Structures are given as C-alpha cells and as structure tokens.
C-alpha cells in the first residue's frame, strides 16, 4: 500500500512539473504567435476588419531563417536566399497597411509540395503560395488556383513588363495565375585560382570554357594533374541536379526531352549526354557527393567547378575564399542549352476566404512584384522584368555579366501535368548509372517508360 502512495506522489509531482512546463511554454508561445489572434477574428468581422490587422497565410520553401532575420527589414543585410525572402516579408509586415503575413511553410523544399497538397485536401489552402512553373498545370488543371490577371492589373501590376518566358510561366489558357518572381537556371561556379594553376585562363585571367566534350575532359585532366584537386563537383543524387545537366546537354545537341505529348529521353542525344555525364562522374568527380558535400568541397577550394543554380551566386561571392566566378554552362555541343525554371507566387482558391483576406493576399502579391529586383540582386536569380534588368542596381550586381547567356537565353522545363513525377523518374534512372553502375541504354529506356507513365497518370 505504501508503494502505491509513493507512486501517487510521483504522479502528482509529474503533474506539477508538466503544469509548470505548460505555463512556461504558454507564455512563450503567446508572445510568439500573438499575430495568430487576428486570424480567426478577421474572417467574420467583415468591413470593420480594415481597422484591425488582416492576417494571411503564406506557404513557401527557401528555408527557415526567422531567428536570424527577426525585426530586420533592410534587404541588403540578407546573407542567403532564405533571408532575402524573409526580410521582404518582414518589410511588408512592418508597413502600415493593415496586413500581416504569417508563414506556413519554410521547410526544406523536398517536403514543400507534399505539405502543400495536404493543405488543399484538408480544405485549408494558404492565401499565397510559391510555386515552380512546371507545377502550375497540376494545380490550375484541377481548378485550385485563382486567376489574377484583372485583380493584379487593377493593383498596378504591369504584366507587360515581364519577360516573355516569365509571363509564359504563369499563363494557362490565356489567364495569368500568378506573379513571376524570378527565372533560375544552372551555372558553372568556377574556382578561378585552380583554373589558373592549371593554365586554363585567358589573357584577362578569365577561365577558358571548354567548347566540346574532348576539351571538357582534357580540362579535367589538366586541372587534376596540375592541382591534385577534383575538377567537377555537383550533387550527384539528392535533388535531381544531374538530370538538369542532362537536359541542358540534350538541348545543346538540338534534341528535346518532351515533344508536347510524350517524353523521349531515350534518344541519340540522350545517350550522348548520359555517356558524357558518366565520364565526368568516373574521371573528374566524386559521385558519392550530394548537395551539401559537393558545395562544401567547392567552397573549401577542393573542386574547380561546381554545377549548381543561380540561387547561390551572391552567397558564394561573399563566402568563397578564392577567386570566384559564376559562368554560363559551357556549350559543349555547339548551341547554348541549360536547364531553367521559374518561381512564382499564386493565390489558391478558397471559398472560405473573406474579401478582406483576398485583398490582403493581392496586396502582398503586388508587393512581391515590386520587390522582384531585390530578390534578383540579393540572390543571383535572373530578374523576370525588363525594367529591372535595365536598372543600374541589377547590372551592377556582382557576377551578373559572367552569366548573361543564361539570363538572355533561359529556357524552362516543360510545364505539363505530372511533370514532377516524371522528372523524379528521369532523375532516379540517370542517377542509377553513376551511383550503381546501371546500364546506360537500359536506364534511358526505363526512364522513358516511367516518365510517360507519370505523365499519363
């Protein structure tokens, strides 16, 4: 019996402890999410809502950097892609406009679309969401996004100022479904010091880019012989970056990956591109490196070239402890060809959204349209608006001249329903050749079958 009494006491003790924890957390959480309170109140308060803060929900990837950007509204202080968008959001919230934007997402982008999907099926989609252009058909095709052509034009958004590829990205059946935020692509991030050591720089000290496959492999030999470091690095298996280079190389040969109805990676161009990639993996790189590792070895000066996107240009420009240059993907097969995509902001359709909330969402999208320049200058992405491209701020930003080809000739992956699954299938099959030694012809045949299956799903 005594034992039971003791147990009782312990139970009480735990009760007390958890009560303490609970109250401690509660006060902390209250400060933390005080903005929450307006959320439910605003939807039913109607017209009087203009007096209170209207809170809208924003879903995005780009990561979580609340801690380092708390209270910061000056975008020039940003040190990463995440911080740029968070500071722009902070600045919008700080303006006296009666609107508050509350972030929903922020997770690693591998999770973003799965989590976005659950918000739709749960009937609680966000008010504004970021989206890639290749995902748009999946959502618009199901009637899940609200067209914004008229409402945003009324807000002062000049759609004519957008570049043609950017505008194409948000267009679906003659309606605009969002505001483009950038165009992004793949780049050759170069450690010029290693190039110089290998004697691969021109009179101005700029790295010489290879113009065919043989030259590429010769450069690889030269760099590795002269410096002892790895020539080429990129994420070989995590985020489908190998497939991006593959696509670029297919386009460079005048080939296509998608003909408007079916995917056809199993082509002569595909075989050539895949074989070159495998040569790179085998002789010039370390196919066991993923995104973080490859980036780490480049920044540590252990790789002459890192194939990665436009989003890291400004970050590398700041952080690299060597002579760094961001270059266009070299034209190995004559023509220019490089993977590209676009980020855009869309407004999911939600019948429970109040007029005030819709107004707030549109105001935020308009604001993001206005800050397109800050985004491009702060990250390295290509601006999607003519007036921004012509601006001094943009052209003065570091490195931009070095990859003007990517900016001018950007071309995007097909926007077609089911593309995400098809792309993953392609990526997995290609990865299998350099990670697991899968037969290249078989991989391409499997990729074609799996891609088309995903596209018809």
């Amino acid at each position, binding site marked *: 019996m005594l*034992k*039971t009494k003791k*147990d*009782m006491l*312990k*139970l009480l*003790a*735990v009760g007390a*402890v*958890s009560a303490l*924890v*609970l109250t401690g*957390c*509660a006060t*902390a*959480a209250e400060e*933390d*999410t005080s903005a*929450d309170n307006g959320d439910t109140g605003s939807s039913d308060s109607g017209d009087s809502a203009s007096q209170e803060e209207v809170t809208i*929900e924003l879903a995005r990837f780009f*990561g*979580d*950097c*609340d*801690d380092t950007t*708390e209270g910061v509204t000056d975008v020039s202080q940003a040190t990463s892609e*995440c911080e740029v968008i968070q500071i722009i959001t902070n600045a919008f919230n700080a303006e006296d406009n009666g609107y508050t934007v509350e*972030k*929903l*997402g*922020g*997770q*690693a982008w*591998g*999770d973003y679309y799965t*989590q976005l999907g*659950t*918000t739709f*099926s*749960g*009937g*609680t989609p966000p008010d504004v969401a970021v989206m890639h252009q290749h995902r748009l058909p999946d959502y618009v095709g199901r009637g899940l996004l609200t067209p914004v052509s008229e409402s945003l034009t009324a807000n002062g958004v000049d759609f004519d100022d957008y570049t043609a590829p950017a505008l194409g990205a948000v267009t679906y059946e003659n309606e605009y479904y969002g505001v483009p935020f950038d165009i992004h692509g793949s780049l050759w991030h170069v450690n010029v010091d290693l190039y110089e050591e290998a004697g691969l720089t021109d009179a101005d000290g700029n790295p010489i880019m290879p113009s065919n496959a043989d030259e590429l492999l010769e450069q690889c030999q030269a760099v590795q012989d002269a410096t002892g470091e790895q020539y080429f690095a990129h994420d070989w298996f995590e985020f489908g970056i190998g497939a991006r280079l593959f696509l670029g190389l297919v386009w460079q040969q005048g080939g296509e990956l998608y003909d408007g109805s079916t995917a056809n990676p199993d082509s002569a161009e595909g075989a050539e591109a895949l074989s070159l990639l495998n040569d790179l993996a085998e002789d010039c790189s370390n196919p066991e490196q993923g*995104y*973080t590792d490859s*980036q*780490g070895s480049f920044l540590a000066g252990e790789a002459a070239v890192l194939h990665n996107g436009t989003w890291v240009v400004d970050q590398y420009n700041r952080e690299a402890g060597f002579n760094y240059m961001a270059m266009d993907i070299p034209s190995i097969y004559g023509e220019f060809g490089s993977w590209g995509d676009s980020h855009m902001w869309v407004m999911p359709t939600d019948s429970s959204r109040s007029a005030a909330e819709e107004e707030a969402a549109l105001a935020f999208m308009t604001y993001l349209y206005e800050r397109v320049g800050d985004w491009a200058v702060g990250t390295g992405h290509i601006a999607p608006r003519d007036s921004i491209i012509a601006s001094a701020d943009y052209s003065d930003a570091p490195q931009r001249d070095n990859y003007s080809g990517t900016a001018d000739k950007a071309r995007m992956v097909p926007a077609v329903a089911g593309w995400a699954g098809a792309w993953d299938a392609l990526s997995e099959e290609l990865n299998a050749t350099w990670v697991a030694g899968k037969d290249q012809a078989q991989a391409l045949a499997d990729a074609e079958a799996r891609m088309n299956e995903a596209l018809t799903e």
Partner: protein
Amino acid sequence: MTITAPARTSSFLIRPKFKQTLFLSMMSIFAAIWILPLIWMFSLAFSSNEALQLDSNSLLPTDPTIDNVVGVIQGGLTPRWMLNSVIVTGFTTIFTLILSAMAGYAFARIPFRGKKIIYPLVLAGLMVPREAMFIPLFLMFAEADYHNTYEALMLPRIAAPLGVFIMTQFMAAIPEEIEEAARVDGASRWRTFWSVMMPMSVPAMTALGIFTYILTWNDFLWPLVSATQREMFTITTGLASLQGNFAQATELGSLMARGVIASLPLLILFFIFQKQLVRGISIGSGGK
C-alpha cells in the same frame, strides 16, 4: 570428496568475484560507448556555433555557452512546438488511461455477454500496423475538415488496445474480496471502479501512462501528414522540419540545443519513472 570440497568452494568464491568485476568493467566500457552519442549531443548544444565550425568532435563543450538553449527557448517556434507536444501528449495519455481502465475493468470483472467475442477482437488490434494505415485516417480527417487540430493529433492515438490489455491483466489480478466488500456496502459499479479499482491500479496506470507518453511524444508519421501548419507541428515533426535547412551545419549548436530541449522532458520522466516503466512493459508482455 571431503578433502576436495573446501578447495573447490574457495576457488569458486574467488574466481567468480574476479570474473564478475572484469565482466562488469567490460559492460561499463560498452555502456559508455553506448551513451556517447547522447553525451555528444549535449556537448554540442552547449558549445558556441563558431567553435563548432572548427571542431565538432569534442565530448566536452568547446567554448561553453548556454546561448543556444536560451536562443531556442526565446525565439522561433520551438516553444510553441513544445506546447503542442505537451498538450497532445498529456491529453492523449489521460484519455488512454481512463478509457483503458474502464474497458479493462469491464473485461476483467464484469461477466457480460459478448465479452468472449469482443475481447479477442480488441487483442487482435495489437497486431494492426497503425503507422501503415495513415492514408484512410488522413482522408477521414480531411473530409471532416479536421486537420491541423489537436483532436486530429490525439484521437487516433487514444485507441490503444495495448492499454486495455495491460489494464485487463492487472485488474484481473486484484483480489476479488476487495471489490466485493465495496459492493456489499452498496457502492455502485461506477463508484467501485472509481474509488476502489482505480486507486488499486495506480502501478499499472503509471506504467501505461509513461509508455503512452513516450510513444505519443515520439509519434512522427501521423503528425507529419495531419499537422501541416507550422504552428501545429509537434516538437518531433518540428525538429525534423529543421534538419533539411541546417544542412550546412553553421548552426550545429542551435540545432543540437533543440534536440536537447526536445528530449529532456522524456529523459527526466524516464529517470524518475524507469522502475514503473520497466514494470509496465513486463505487464504488457504478459509477465508478472
């Protein structure tokens, strides 16, 4: 026989003692290695982020600081996630205990018709892979528009056949006379249950409670699909959501501090209640 016997006993006494010590020291070394990863986490959590950029392999905090822990408590969503976890876990545990005790009492003590069919049906639930059944549950809550609520996080966890099994086993072992005495005094079934059987079952309930607490706190897949709003994450899914973003490891100390904060409540609970927990697991396994 008589001559050899003393010699044998003496060697029998000395050698095992030496062997015992040797054995225990070896086990201790092994245990030290076992606990090393946990110590490492604590050490990193109390090291400054800058120092960790240079060396992250120390088992004692380098450049010791509590900034990471303080920073996590003060800023960001981690406190909110902790609150969510405490609420969800707390209520799930309480409801599991009450419902399991009630059902356990009925199965152990009330001879009602249908029991012989219903009880095996409940026990069969022990074999159901609950994690694997998240799709229909997701759909169910989606259609009711109930995701991102505490109820959605709690309800599927409360239906624990293990709790009923443990409580039935335990209550069946309580001497019949104690309950009879109360019944003779004119107490209703409910009163008997509440004021006699429940207090008698505290040991089993403590164990079941802790066990439920651990399992619910550590639940991952269901909160991942049901709670998609950041404010509704539990500490377990919240911490997972941060791991992709900190891949560069520039904030290793802060990240580990979150790990420490997320596991501390359970580690403390475990150190207080480990006896009861162990007993509970044995009851659950059908032992004594």
